[in-house]
Structure formats: structure tokens, C-alpha cells
């Protein structure tokens, strides 16, 4: 067994990337380069495992497997960037992209990593680093690229120095997103290359390739992931980190300043670059033809490649890993080599439209839905449709027909609940925003009336107010969202004299995506102490006169403050502040329970929508495994039936 490279033992130790050598070395205390002696022990263990398996009559897979590691696509993107010699990385959290930066920061001694306040800032930070000569990675989810689109469009003209890759994770199926937009459109719009890996190994390999392409053609590059690439794990081999580039910005205004006289010249160069890139895409290892049976040829990309091979094992495949500019020559060669062409792409018909425009007859969205994510099951339907077979409809299971739904909910002890509960006392319109508090839309709280985008909670409220909405309009944003894009909206509320009440529900973290730091937390992604931007002071600096801070666990005080601000016709800012208990991992207070003798089953506590309070219609109980001890149920109970659980002190 070969010695493992030193860096494999300094890998992120997050549980789900446990690797085979880690499993085997755990008992050997292998925290350091693996010596020959340790290596021999590991081999002996593997031989023993092998012997066990032979004894059990199970075929033994190839032994080199033990050098591979099981890591998620997001961890692989980070590893690929590390191996590519990235020295600056920036991003804004967003499912399913968040873990890329969280994995990359494990290399913080060699890679500067930051959470930027928003995606536009992150992309510009990366662009600056690249123009100074460094290799830079920027990460975000698909809707984040809308925020960052402005700098990306012109960076395409200016071009880059050090390799520049923006890794964007789409969310087909909208598992955690407000829309299902297809990032591939941006590659065409910005006239830049896009790569689409199909598993974790390709995430590493394509990342390195993308940086090379970026530098060679001086172009920003998009690395497109999707939920099932980012959050699936598969086995990879690690490589070495590339040599680092020199950093020294070279003054060259005609190249870096797109004033019209120079911008027009850049415009021409962008088109020439696209022609060159298309040729490179045709010979790139990222695009390949797999000939099998020639009667059906399938063009596919990203994760859809895996599903296609699963469901059409006999078909020939043109696997597209470098999706734009289109590899026309390769497409023509493939189409000429098969009888019939089918395009299997997740979301929009981007390849199909282009291939049809090339004059090649094909099927695509006629048999593969553009809506929602693909899966082997959906492709089985596609296959049945193509073969004219009936699509078997599974009998719905009677035993599962009436199961209660289990939508995501505000956690037990969530401080947002106090604000939502306070708002249930008022007939107001609440313009909401993107974050955990989106969950306030569900009954029984039902206090999010519209959600548009990051920062939209503030600005929509102002627009509704100016339109003359009869009810009071309340805009709500989270802390991370406020720093992301709520500040300009708040400035507008003050500047243009809105009567809207703006509430910032500050739980001291970016909670929904898994607790990332932001400019208000006092800590950077690299774990350093830093400034704690004050939401109240920003509000006052914007010109808001009425600024009030509340403790959302104090329902009485929260209700009173909300009532006063909702009453007022001046612009006002309410900051509800309490840390997310899921992050602090502490009880908010003592465990509570319900005295069944005293409980009159009035249902008042159930109006909090707390998952720890369970009712079967007759009795109400508090699940002590779930209770976070926030005491809101104690506060709302009018008959004193909620009490501190015996021995339940925090």
C-alpha cells in the first residue's frame, strides 16, 4: 500500500467524510503521515477483512478502493479548488452550496476564506483577487448569481488574470429554494464557459480543469452543481496542490477599464474567445462519447448522466461536462454515429434548443419534463413513453393515504416564534424574507404573507405602503439577510418616509443554512474575532428615528413594542434579538410540562406552533426530548397548567 500524501490526514474531520484509511487507522492513532509500520497494520486489517469476505463466499472488489475517500460533491469542489492552488475564496451561504466554503476553510492556513455579506460582494472580492494574480473561488446558490450577475457580466469583458471560478449550485426540485432557475443560461448570457460534474471525483477534476481554462483563455468560468451533486457523496482520490501564482497587479487600463473606447474592443475579443473555447470544448476530456448500442444516442450532462446510464444501460451517450460554448463538432459526430438522438437534461431545454438549431433531429422535453428534478424513476417514465409502453401507476398505499404531513417547522425554542406570536395580535400585512422565518408562513402562526427574495421583506413593505394598502405593512428580515441586502431597503424606508414597520429577527447567525457567521456575529469564517456590526446603529445612521430592541422570549414586552411601532406612522425598526438555540446547543430555560389536572385543553399554547407541544385533540403534552425550555407556553397559558418539569432545571 502506498503511503498516503500528508495532506490526507489533515482533511476536514466532519463525520460523513470518514475515509477508509481513517476507519482503519483510528485505532492506530494515525494523526500524522502514515508510516511504513502503520501501513503494514492497515494492510493486515484489509487482508483480514478480505479473508472474512472470502469465507462468506462474497466476491471481493478491487483492493485499490481502500485509497479512496467518500466525500460529498461540495467537499469535492473545495478539495478541487485547494488542489488547483486557490488562495482566495469567498461566498455567501445558500443551500445546496454552503458546505463548499465550510470544507475549504479547513485549509485556512493555505487559503484565505470569507463569508461575504452577499454574493455580489463575494464575486467582486474574487475578481479583485484574480486581477491581482491569485486563483480565486466564489461560491453561491443559483439565486445568488442573480445578485452577483452585474459584476460577472463585465468581468467577462475585462477577463481575469489568476484563474477565476464561480461555483453555483442549482436546486432542481426546489428542495430549499424559492425558484428553479437554470444557471446554464448565465453562461450563455455572460459568454463564458460552464462545467457540470456528475459526481465527486468529477467535481475535483473539473474544478482543476476549470481553473486552467480560466487562466488560459482569461475568462471567468462557472462550475454548475445541483442539489444531487452537492449533497451526494461518492468516492474520490486526492491529488497534490498546484504551484501557487505570483500576486502582483500590473497596471494596464486598456485591459481593465471598460470605458466605451476600450469596452468595445473587449466586446470583440469576447466573441473570438468563445470561438476558441468551443474548439477546446470539443477536445476536452470533460466531454466524451461512450458508444454502446447505436440505435439510441443520448446527450446528457451533470447528474442526469448517472440516471441515464442506470435507466438506459445499453444506449450510447455523449456525456457533456463542459456545457458552454457548445462542442458542436462533437455533437455532430455523435449524432451521425447513432440512429436516434435523445437529450436528457435537468430543467431547461438549453442543449436541446441548440442541437435542434444545428439541424439535428432529436427528442428532449417532449419526453423529459423541464419541471422538477430528474431521477431514475422519472427517466423510467421517459423510457416507457418513448417505447409506447403504459407508465405503471403505483397503487397509492391505503395505509399511508392519511398520514399527517411533516413540513419543516420553526424549531422548539426558536426566538422568531415570539415575534410571530406577537404579530398574530394585529391585522397587518407581513412582507417576509428568505430564512428560517419563512416557516412563519405556516399555520398556526401564518404571519408571512409574501416572500420574494433576499432583502425583499423591507422593500416590498415600503412599496405596499406607498401604494396605499389600508392595513399596516410590516416588513421582516433576518440578521444575515439584513446585512446581505436589507440595508439599502431600510435606507429607502427612511429616505422616502415609509410608514412601514421593519422587524429584524436577529438570531445571531445565518441559521437556515446551518449557522454561518456574518458581519453581525463578531467572528469570521476563519474563526477570528472581528467587529460586530450593530443593526440598531445602522438603522439610526440610515435616518430611522424609532429604533427599539426586544427580547422575543418576553412575549408581553414584545407584544407591547410591536403594538407601539405598528401604531406609529413614522418609519420604525424593531430588532428582536436572541441567539438560535440550535446553534448555542443550550437549553433556553428549564424543561416544561403540562399539569393534566389543571389543563382545560383551551388550545392557546398550540397557537405557538411549537413542535414540542403535542396534542391528540383530547390531551396536550410537552415532548421532553424536544422541549428547549423557552417558556413561551408558560407565558401564554391562562390557567397555570404549564409548569417547570420536576428535575427539569436547565
Amino acid at each position, binding site marked *: 500500500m502506498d503511503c498516503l500524501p500528508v495532506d490526507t490526514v489533515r482533511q476536514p474531520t466532519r463525520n460523513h467524510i470518514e475515509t477508509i484509511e481513517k476507519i482503519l487507522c483510528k485505532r492506530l492513532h494515525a494523526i500524522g503521515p502514515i508510516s511504513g509500520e502503520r501501513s503494514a497494520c492497515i494492510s493486515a486489517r484489509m487482508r483480514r477483512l478480505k479473508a472474512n469476505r472470502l469465507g462468506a463466499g462474497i466476491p471481493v472488489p478491487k483492493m485499490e478502493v481502500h485509497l479512496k475517500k467518500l466525500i460529498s460533491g461540495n467537499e469535492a469542489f473545495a478539495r478541487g479548488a485547494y488542489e488547483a492552488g486557490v488562495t482566495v475564496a469567498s461566498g455567501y451561504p445558500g443551500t445546496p452550496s454552503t458546505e463548499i466554503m465550510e470544507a475549504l476553510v479547513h485549509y485556512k492556513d493555505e487559503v484565505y476564506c470569507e463569508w461575504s455579506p452577499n454574493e455580489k460582494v463575494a464575486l467582486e472580492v474574487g475578481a479583485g483577487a484574480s486581477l491581482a494574480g491569485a486563483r480565486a473561488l466564489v461560491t453561491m446558490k443559483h439565486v445568488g448569481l442573480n445578485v452577483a450577475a452585474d459584476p460577472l457580466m463585465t468581468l467577462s469583458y475585462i477577463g481575469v488574470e489568476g484563474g477565476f471560478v464561480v461555483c453555483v449550485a442549482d436546486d432542481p426540485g426546489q428542495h430549499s429554494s424559492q425558484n428553479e432557475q437554470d444557471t446554464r443560461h448565465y453562461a450563455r448570457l455572460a459568454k463564458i464557459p460552464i462545467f457540470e460534474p456528475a459526481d465527486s471525483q468529477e467535481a475535483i477534476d473539473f474544478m482543476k480543469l476549470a481553473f486552467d481554462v480560466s487562466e488560459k483563455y482569461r475568462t471567468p468560468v462557472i462550475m454548475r452543481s445541483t442539489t444531487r451533486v452537492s449533497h451526494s457523496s461518492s468516492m474520490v482520490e486526492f491529488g497534490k496542490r498546484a504551484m501557487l501564482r505570483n500576486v502582483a497587479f500590473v497596471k494596464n487600463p486598456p485591459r481593465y477599464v471598460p470605458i466605451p473606447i476600450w469596452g468595445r474592443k473587449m466586446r470583440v475579443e469576447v466573441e473570438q474567445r468563445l470561438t476558441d473555447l468551443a474548439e477546446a470544448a470539443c477536445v476536452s476530456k470533460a466531454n466524451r462519447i461512450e458508444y454502446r448500442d447505436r440505435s439510441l444516442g443520448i446527450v446528457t450532462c451533470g447528474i442526469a448522466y448517472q440516471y441515464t446510464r442506470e435507466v438506459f444501460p445499453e444506449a450510447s451517450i455523449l456525456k457533456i461536462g463542459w456545457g458552454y460554448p457548445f462542442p458542436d463538432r462533437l455533437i455532430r459526430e455523435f449524432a451521425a454515429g447513432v440512429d436516434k438522438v435523445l437529450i436528457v437534461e435537468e430543467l431547461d431545454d438549453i442543449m436541446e434548443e441548440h442541437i435542434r438549431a444545428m439541424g439535428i433531429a432529436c427528442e428532449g422535453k417532449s419526453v423529459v419534463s423541464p419541471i422538477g428534478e430528474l431521477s431514475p424513476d422519472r427517466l423510467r417514465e421517459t423510457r416507457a413513453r418513448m417505447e409506447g409502453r403504459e407508465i405503471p401507476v403505483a397503487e397509492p398505499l391505503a395505509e399511508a393515504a392519511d398520514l*399527517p404531513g411533516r413540513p419543516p417547522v420553526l424549531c422548539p425554542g426558536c426566538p422568531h416564534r415570539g415575534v410571530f406570536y406577537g404579530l398574530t395580535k394585529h391585522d397587518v400585512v407581513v412582507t417576509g424574507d428568505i430564512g428560517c422565518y419563512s416557516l412563519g408562513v405556516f399555520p398556526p402562526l401564518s404571519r408571512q404573507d409574501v416572500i420574494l427574495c433576499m432583502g425583499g421583506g423591507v422593500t416590498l413593505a415600503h412599496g405596499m405602503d406607498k401604494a396605499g394598502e389600508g392595513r399596516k405593512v410590516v416588513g421582516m428580515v433576518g440578521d444575515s439577510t439584513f446585512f446581505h441586502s436589507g440595508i439599502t431597503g431600510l435606507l429607502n424606508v427612511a429616505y422616502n418616509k415609509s410608514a412601514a414597520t421593519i422587524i429584524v429577527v436577529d438570531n445571531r447567525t445565518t441559521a437556515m443554512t446551518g449557522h454561518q457567521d456574518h458581519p453581525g456575529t463578531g467572528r469570521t469564517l476563519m474563526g477570528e474575532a472581528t467587529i460586530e456590526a450593530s443593526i440598531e446603529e445602522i438603522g439610526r445612521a440610515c435616518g430611522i428615528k424609532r429604533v427599539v430592541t426586544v427580547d422575543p422570549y418576553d412575549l408581553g414586552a414584545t407584544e407591547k413594542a410591536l403594538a407601539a411601532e405598528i401604531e406609529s406612522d413614522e418609519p420604525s425598526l424593531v430588532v428582536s434579538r436572541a441567539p438560535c438555540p440550535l446553534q448555542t446547543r443550550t437549553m433556553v430555560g428549564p424543561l416544561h410540562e403540562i399539569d393534566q389536572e389543571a389543563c382545560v385543553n383551551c388550545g392557546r399554547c398550540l397557537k405557538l406552533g411549537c413542535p414540542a407541544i403535542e396534542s391528540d385533540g383530547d390531551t396536550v403534552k410537552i415532548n421532553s426530548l424536544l422541549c428547549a425550555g423557552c417558556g413561551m407556553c408558560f407565558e401564554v397559558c391562562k390557567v397555570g397548567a404549564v409548569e417547570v418539569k420536576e428535575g427539569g432545571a436547565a
Partner: protein
Amino acid sequence: MTTSVVIVGVGGQGVLLASEITANAAIAAGHQVKTNEVHGMAQRGGSVIAQIRYGEEVLSPLVPEGEAVVLASLERIEALRYSRLLAPGGLVVVSDQQIVPTTASSGQAVYPTDAEERLKRVYPKLLYLKAEEIATRLGNPRAANVVVVGAMSRALELPLEAWREAVASAVKKEHLDLNLKAFDEGRGAK
């Protein structure tokens, strides 16, 4: 030949740890492995699913319908939601834990009182375990997920040593003894 396993439950119950142990056991036994997990919004107390596939070459990380040889559930009614994934003759392991969703507590729906009967009707090969009770007896109710993994392990052709190594790799050293006991209890459960 790809072997598919599905583990479901409610966010916060330890579905991902159970998935990790299973994947690591398959790796320790020398297989190629792919897994898929739910992150983000779906985790906030929602229904959670983890999928593990292993074999010589694994393509899709998603388990196709009717291919899971084991379906494990850390919550009693969650097992009923994913029946379409189970292969004919597959083993179903269900922890009898009951977590009532807010949809039921707020009166919009009813949590079934006959979950066990339903499970028996739907799944001919069912192991209905008091996993939480077992884990509590061993010292920590949170180890219920490892009891379930132990029970699952009987239907998967992976060496016992690989499972034990996988448990060791996934839990903190100070919790190892308890978790290995939890695994063994699950593996021996009737």
C-alpha cells in the same frame, strides 16, 4: 449488482449518523459507495431521508423505486411514507418512536393510532423495535439510531467487523462502548 439502503426519520433523530455508519461499513468491506442526504430547509423537523448504495460500480446516488433491500425508519409512521422504495422481500426496520408533527397537534391532520398494525399489513418482513427504550436502558436514548443500524445490518451482507469499525469511525470515543452495545442489541433483536 448495486445494493440500496434507505434510512428515514425526522430531522434531528440521527438519520445522517445512521447513514454514515452504513456507508462506512460498505467501504470497509471494499465496496464502491454513493450516498445522498437531505440538507437545508428539509431538516427543520421535517421528514428526512438518506440513501446509501454500494457495489462494484454505483451510478445514481438516488435509490430507484422498488430497489431498497432495507428500509429503516427512526419514527413509526415515517416508514409508511417510503414504501415505494422497498424491494420485494426487503427488510423493514422500524423504531417505535412517535414524533407528532405540528400538523397533527394543530388539528389539521390525525396521527394514526394503529401504526404498528398498518406496518404489519404493508411489510411482510418487519422488525418493529423499541429502539429508544433499548438505547435508554443502555444509557442514552439518542443511540436509538444505532440500535436500528444494528438491526438493519442483519439483512446486509457486510462483515460484522466492518460494521463495528464503521460505528467506531462515526461516534466520539467516549460514546463508543454505548454505541457498540446499541449496535449489538439491534443486531440481536427479534
